[in-house]
């Protein structure tokens, strides 16, 4: 038989088809596929989490100042999930992405598991575990040694806030030890409190009754991006989206942030000029007579021109604002069209319960005193103080009735030394402390004296202060840096000795009122699990350091342990805290004639400072002073601003792996920060979307990626804030650039605090 090509092919095809069809009737391929998939999936290292009884344990989240109540879901002894606590007045069941990922901190590699002593060079990451006795003994010995050498003032203490028992134990330690060099992280909330001190005669925290306000005028506050207590603020913002709510948010901000996008109206403004707009609004309200006449005429002073004891005439707030801030002038400064200035003022005045808010972004930067006073003046003009939907005063959460500290002569003497940062001296008479100047001061060869020791509790100055390079160089000059906290953050990484704290899932501690919250609200952290590692409640650490030092220092810490201190400090409040997880009290809602603690019992539009620091009378008449970042316009034609949001934790706690994962590729690309630039500007500078570029400022230079974003103004670059860590783990360290490394100090001319994170910049394709 002759086999031609055609037959050969058809037999071949038939056999192939037959084989293919035939194989369907045998189980072999299916069996093989099945086996293959089972084999490829049965890796012994795929975890099989243990089962067990499910329970829920309450505590308070401490990862930001927001103070949310959380409920931790446990399976037997393991925590498996953190959820918002239902019914908690701060967050009622809601939770933010950072709080939700807290277990990655509790169980994660950034935890400090035992006291550590530096073994390699500073910042090298080589550590030797030591016992608690050794660690505390070393701290006490070093500090006592300095004290005996009459160098107590060269030891500094740095804490993240002035409220709560643990912060105050460290501050007390500083006082009885005898150092004037205490640093408390400075926020916009502190600046507003200063404004209240001057205008109302009482150092108080502002409480904003935003739930009952119908017109929220935000001067750059990241309402849904971490300003105040995040979940509470998002709830407030969501009220706006409720059909028929009649509530609106107006966002004044240079960049189209999430808050600006969600606001009823976004007013685009030049960076750092918010105070001028606030005063422009005051101008229109006064000129058109829209203010609250009863408040202004009966309960305020220095609104009209006034004459002092030596017959010098002074401009009142009214004339100053009418002369200096007409909408045409405001338009020139802020870039907001004059018609819009007038319209905003009329809207604000016409609302039933308007309120104006201060503090850019998350409020982590101090801002200017006049900025805060201008915003508060706007609230005062409309009589929004102690009114529903307005602003109230809260005392700081430091009312613990502690016995007066025992001060020996040594402490009294060294407390009188000038502070290293110059706060309280003739140069900065209005500041009690200036943490933002730390880098500059330490780098200054002519500094008054070197710092020999630094004790940091839960703050991260190495990351959060401007001029990172100077701060890091300064830290490395200090002989003995001690970090007390639960995570290996940037400051911990630069320390000589690390004293690990419990996390908020392992300890008893009070959590002070969330910033801006409408009532006093002290939360309670509770041990949800037994401490996992060889850590110690930081308050206990402070007490033990004091006791180990003996003498008058030890005498000022009469408590046997931290728990006793907490119980005595909270007093009757503790019962509520244990039952509900928090204690609450309404703010003073008294009428205007009892509301103000100034000498005249009136609200002061232009407070006068009487202090030996001012030979001439110093009058704090709110005004706008232009901030000029370093660098020439020709060399650095762009303006660099930071942007903040809830996916970027930028304070003493950094992003968890989950949070880094949520970052869009318009914030972080591989290991590089992504900058936002207006498409027109980007093209003019030869950049392309996603391309690499070199961003430089007078303070530094970094490689970034480019994202064209029409939500930033021309000639502006926006950089995400919260990246560029040197501490933590591989899931965060080394990713992106720290904004602080690129901006120089931009001091408020009145107080000296850092006014804003703004720098001049240039960008070229890489």
């Amino acid at each position, binding site marked *: 038989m002759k086999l031609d090509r055609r037959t050969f092919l058809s037999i071949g095809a038939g056999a192939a088809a037959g084989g293919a069809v035939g194989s369907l009737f045998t189980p072999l391929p299916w069996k093989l596929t099945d086996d293959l*998939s089972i084999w490829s999936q049965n890796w012994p290292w795929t975890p099989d*989490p243990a089962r067990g009884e499910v329970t829920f344990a309450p505590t308070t989240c401490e990862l930001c100042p927001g103070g949310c109540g959380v409920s931790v879901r446990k399976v037997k002894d393991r925590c498996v999930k953190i959820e918002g606590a239902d019914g908690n007045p701060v967050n009622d069941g809601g939770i933010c992405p950072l709080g939700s990922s807290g*277990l990655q901190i509790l169980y994660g*590699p950034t935890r400090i598991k035992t006291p550590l002593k530096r073994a390699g060079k500073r910042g090298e990451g080589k550590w030797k575990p030591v016992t608690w006795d050794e660690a505390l003994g070393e701290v006490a010995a070093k500090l006592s040694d300095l004290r005996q050498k009459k160098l107590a003032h060269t030891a500094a203490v740095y804490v993240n806030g002035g409220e709560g028992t643990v912060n105050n134990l460290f501050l007390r330690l500083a006082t009885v030890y005898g150092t004037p060099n205490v640093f408390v992280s400075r926020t916009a909330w502190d600046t507003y409190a200063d404004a209240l001190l001057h205008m109302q005669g009482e150092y108080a925290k502002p409480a904003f009754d935003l739930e009952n306000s119908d017109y929220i005028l935000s001067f750059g506050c990241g309402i849904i991006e971490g300003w105040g207590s995040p979940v509470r603020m998002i709830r407030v913002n969501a009220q706006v989206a409720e059909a028929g709510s009649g509530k609106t948010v107006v966002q004044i901000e240079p960049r189209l942030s*999430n808050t600006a996008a969600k606001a009823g109206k976004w007013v685009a403004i030049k960076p750092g000029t918010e105070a001028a707009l606030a005063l422009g609004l005051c101008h229109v309200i006064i000129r058109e007579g829209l203010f609250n006449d009863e408040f202004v005429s009966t309960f305020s002073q220095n609104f009209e021109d006034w004459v002092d004891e030596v017959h010098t005439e002074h401009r009142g707030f009214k004339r100053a604002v009418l002369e200096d801030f007409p909408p045409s002038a405001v338009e020139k400064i802020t870039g907001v069209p004059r018609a819009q200035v007038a319209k905003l003022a009329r809207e604000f005045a016409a609302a039933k319960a308007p309120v104006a808010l201060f503090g850019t972004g998350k409020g982590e930067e101090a801002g200017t005193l006049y900025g805060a006073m201008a915003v508060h003046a706007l609230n005062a003009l409309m009589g929004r103080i102690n009114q529903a939907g307005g602003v109230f005063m809260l005392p700081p959460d430091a009312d613990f009735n502690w016995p007066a500290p025992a001060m020996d002569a040594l402490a009294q003497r060294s407390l009188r030394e000038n502070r290293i940062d110059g706060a309280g001296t003739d140069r900065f008479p209005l500041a009690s402390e200036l943490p933002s100047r730390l880098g500059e001061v330490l780098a200054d060869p002519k500094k008054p004296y070197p710092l020999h020791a630094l004790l940091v509790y839960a703050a991260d100055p190495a990351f959060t202060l401007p001029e990172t390079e100077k701060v890091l160089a300064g830290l490395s000059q200090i002989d003995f840096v001690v970090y007390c906290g639960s995570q290996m953050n940037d400051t911990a990484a630069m320390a000589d000795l690390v004293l690990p704290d419990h996390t908020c899932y392992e300890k008893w501690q009070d959590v002070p009122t969330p910033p801006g919250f409408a009532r006093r609200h002290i939360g309670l952290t509770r041990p949800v699990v037994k401490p996992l590692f060889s850590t110690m409640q930081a308050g206990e650490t402070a007490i033990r350091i004091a006791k180990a030092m003996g003498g008058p220092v030890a005498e000022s810490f009469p408590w046997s342990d931290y728990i006793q201190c907490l119980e005595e400090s909270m007093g009757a409040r503790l019962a509520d805290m244990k039952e509900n997880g928090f204690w609450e009290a309404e703010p003073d809602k008294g009428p205007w004639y009892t509301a103000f603690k100034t000498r005249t019992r009136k609200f002061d539009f232009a407070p006068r400072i009487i202090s030996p620091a001012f030979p001439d009378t110093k009058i704090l008449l709110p005004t706008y002073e232009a901030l000029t970042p370093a660098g020439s316009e020709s060399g650095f034609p762009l303006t660099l601003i930071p942007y903040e949001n809830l996916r970027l934790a930028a304070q003493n706690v950094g992003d968890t792996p989950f949070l880094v994962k949520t970052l*869009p590729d318009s914030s972080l690309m591989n290991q590089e920060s992504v900058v936002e630039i207006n498409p027109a500007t980007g093209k003019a500078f030869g950049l392309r979307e996603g391309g690499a570029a070199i961003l430089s400022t007078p303070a530094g230079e970094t490689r970034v990626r480019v994202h064209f*974003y029409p939500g930033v103004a021309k000639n502006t670059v926006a950089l995400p804030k919260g990246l560029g860590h040197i501490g933590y783990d591989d899931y965060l360290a080394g990713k992106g650039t720290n904004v602080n490394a690129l901006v120089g100090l931009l001091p408020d001319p009145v107080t000296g605090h850092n006014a804003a994170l703004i720098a001049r910049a240039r960008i070229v394709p890489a």
Partner: protein
Amino acid sequence: MEAAESHEKQKMYGMVIDLDKCTGCGACMVACMAENNVPFRKDETDKFKSITWMRVYLLSNKKDYPYSDICYLPRPCMHCSGRGGHGHSPCVSVCPAVATDYSHATGIVSQIYTRCFGCRYCMGACPYHARYFNWWDPKWPEGMKEYLSPDVSCRMRGVVEKCSFCFHRYQRAMDLAFTEQRTELEENEYQTSCTQACPANAIVFGDLNNEEHQVAQLVSEPPEGKKKFRLLEQLDTNPKVYYLTSKDWVLSAANRSVKEEAKKAESGH
């Protein structure tokens, strides 16, 4: 039991997400990852390979400063019921291993990891990019396995995973109901992790078949001034996730047909 089952009402779980309320904070993404043992890697910036059952997208009106506007859009699995609601969702129709299936009892599209052999047809079929492939074995840094939940199996290399509407929570709720001799669940007894976490209360979850549930009410009668839409409705996938918006540009971006987009791409706009 059988009698009870046959009288059980058919449920159709779905979601309504109010984009006016959504702030893009990312709490839903993290709450989802924490609930469902979703792994993470050192570099998650390649978003095609980053496993996010819930992903928040950013929409832009593409106008220049200061008229630009943005809107966030959270995207879980849409749990499509397909044309006519017969359960022929795009992914279910193509899966050769019955590793993904449509439940007519709940309207939830399942994913059974041990059945999946990683052919990824479903990923190609899903028009929402809601499915993710495990290119690597999951790895947790030392100590972090402690927080893994026993309610959700950990996935292995070579399988596809996606949002389950937290089906294990449904199972738990039904188990509890059963011990109390009930066959029906209250609205709040079964809620997904993202719904529970959302600080803006932008996500509402429930049974679209149950008129008493808020989702059903929002779908049949959106609040004043808001319009509802679903993603790629024109594909007849019949998704069970509805969105609400009051912004016209968001609505028109959502309603833009695939053909229109293709035409634009061709003409280079």
